[in-house]
């Protein structure tokens, strides 16, 4: 992040820059219509990219008879490299615009000759601290302090479905429950890595959509990740990432401590790796258990699967029924398009996996795909 500039009307230089001359005269001439704007663009966040620089600002207009020309126009903005991602700065620009507006309305901070002098030192501190620490606390005068923080933008979380299972990525006990909202606090005890959203909703007595939103929120902050419902009839297969368990010592440590049965000696890498590799299309968890009893002596198969899913070492193969011929007698066709998994259908219709399976296996009009 580069300089910070402020532009205003009336007496005094129209453009204040920190560091000085960061923006060339030429660049400023080119973009000035977007810096001090006509009424239609005022009070809006405006980002302009030109000549390898990006300017983010919010032009403010304060109308009042006391100002010569009946209004005060100003804009405090940030300048950075054109290729930099500036969205994290946007809330700060808006916040500063608000602060300065309030300061001006209360005590004429910007229009007053004396206090105006403080602008350059303030901008200097702003620039240094935001660049160095990503945050800034700035006392302006006895009654006003500015707090700013550059908040990292995270990508939007996926939509949480009722058949998704939230599982904590860190130790559950590390979280201060009281810092979360009431809904989240109410469902936290039911997040165990095995209960799916619908079940959590039923058991915690919280409306389904609220649970979905709360979990999505936890997902956004990386507190939980989503896995699928664990059933012994589930089929999984490995992903190329499974190699990491061998190569990445850190991951290995984490894995072994996670999957070891409590009270037992530490599971061996060999056993665990064999178990993961034993998962393949056509093999259910039940099959795995019957084939690898030896390796499972010190390993909790549920936690094994859970860890594998959380870290992307394995993935679930879901069944998707597709209706291929028309027949009035079968159930609503809208769910049999190949886009809805067994998990989803069971959740939505209340049928058990077994019931659904029986029904569909016997229906000649329906084909089941694994993916």
């Amino acid at each position, binding site marked *: 992040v580069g300089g910070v500039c402020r532009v205003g*009307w009336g007496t005094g230089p*129209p*453009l204040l820059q920190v560091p000085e001359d960061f923006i060339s005269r030429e660049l*400023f*001439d*080119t973009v*000035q*219509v977007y810096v*001090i*704007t*006509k009424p239609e663009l005022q009070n809006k966040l405006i980002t302009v990219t030109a000549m390898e620089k990006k300017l983010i600002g919010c032009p403010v207009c304060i*109308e009042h008879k006391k100002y*010569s*020309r*009946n*209004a005060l*126009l100003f804009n405090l903005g940030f300048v950075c490299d054109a290729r930099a991602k500036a969205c994290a700065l946007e809330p700060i620009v808006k916040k500063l615009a608000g602060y300065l507006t309030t300061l001006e309305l209360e005590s004429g901070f910007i229009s007053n000759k004396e206090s105006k002098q403080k602008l350059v030192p303030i901008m200097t501190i702003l620039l240094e601290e935001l660049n160095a620490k990503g945050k800034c606390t700035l006392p302006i005068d006895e009654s006003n302090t500015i707090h700013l923080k550059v908040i990292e933008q995270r990508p939007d979380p996926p939509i949480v479905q009722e058949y998704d299972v939230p599982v904590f990525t860190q130790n559950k006990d590390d979280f201060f429950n009281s810092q979360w909202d009431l809904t989240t606090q109410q469902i936290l005890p039911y997040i165990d890595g095995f209960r799916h959203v619908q079940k959590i909703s039923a058991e915690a007595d919280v409306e389904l959509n609220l649970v979905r939103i709360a979990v999505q929120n936890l997902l956004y902050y990386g507190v939980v990740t989503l896995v699928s419902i664990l059933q012994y009839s589930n089929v999984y297969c490995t992903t190329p990432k499974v190699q990491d368990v061998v190569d990445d010592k850190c991951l290995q440590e984490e894995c072994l401590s996670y999957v070891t049965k409590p009270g037992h000696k530490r599971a061996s890498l060999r056993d665990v790796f064999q178990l993961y590799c034993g998962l393949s299309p056509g093999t259910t968890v039940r099959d795995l258990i019957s084939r690898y009893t030896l390796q499972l002596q010190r390993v909790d198969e549920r936690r094994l699967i859970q860890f594998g899913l959380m870290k992307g070492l394995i993935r679930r193969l879901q069944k998707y029924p597709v209706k291929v011929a028309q027949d009035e007698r079968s159930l609503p066709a809208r769910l049999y398009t190949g886009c809805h998994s067994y998990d989803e259908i069971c959740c939505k219709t209340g049928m058990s996996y077994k019931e659904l399976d029986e029904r569909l296996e016997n229906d000649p009009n329906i084909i089941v795909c694994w993916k």
Partner: protein
Amino acid sequence: MAVLLMGKSGSGKTSMRSIIFANYIARDTRRLGATIDVEHSHVRFLGNLVLNLWDCGGQDTFMENYFTSQRDNIFRNVEVLIYVFDVESRELEKDMHYYQSCLEAILQNSPDAKIFCLVHKMDLVQEDQRDLIFKEREEDLRRLSRPLECACFRTSIWDETLYKAWSSIVYQLIPNVQQLEMNLRNFAQIIEADEVLLFERATFLVISHYQCKEQRDIHRFEKISNIIKQFKLSCSKLAASFQSMEVRNSNFAAFIDIFTSNTYVMVVMSDPSIPSAATLINIRNARKHFEKLERVDGPKHSLLMR
């Protein structure tokens, strides 16, 4: 074809424009804010004429832009340049510098443009000094403008001088003005009027006149513009629309009436024996003729919009 309105920030450009073309009274202009970059207005004048008015903000940052990156855009196809000088300005050198930059740009891009210099806010100068100061400024400006020629006016929004300047400016833009004047002369002679004035309907600027006798007050045209315009605006504030007026005493009778769809006429008669009714009938009959004139010359002569 553009009419450029330029001058330092706060010199009074937007105020003038608002009074002449937007029915502001002088007091209203106090509310105006600084013009940001350029304000474009398309003003309808005399029905089919469209004045493409460019009110250019005078802040330094804008001015410098006009002479550099925006130069071709601003100064091309200019028919009239109106440059406004604040008579009270403390930065005379800077004012002249900007003015000259304007002239350079005009010389390069629109060398046939007509140039008007308005020495404005004269009301702030002591009355007995006004003529002197204006004369000085006029000389300086004429000198500085060579080889281009400029017409100078002293103006203020608080009196009739504003109307004189703008009438002169707009007069230059009317394409068939000679024909209009000829017809007006015929009309005046037929009805034996001392003087006949033709005003544009919305702005009340005098666009044509004929006088058969010398009159004492050379500033009477703009004074009448000012008075009637103010009166017209007062009427509209009462939700009434001004239509006509007759003023008479033992020496004269003056009639002001709606003439064509785009004009007002003022007829001054000094022969008291001619009854009002007669004059009014004459005016009514002349109307049709002048309407035809307006329509015939219309589309051919309208200024093209840029």
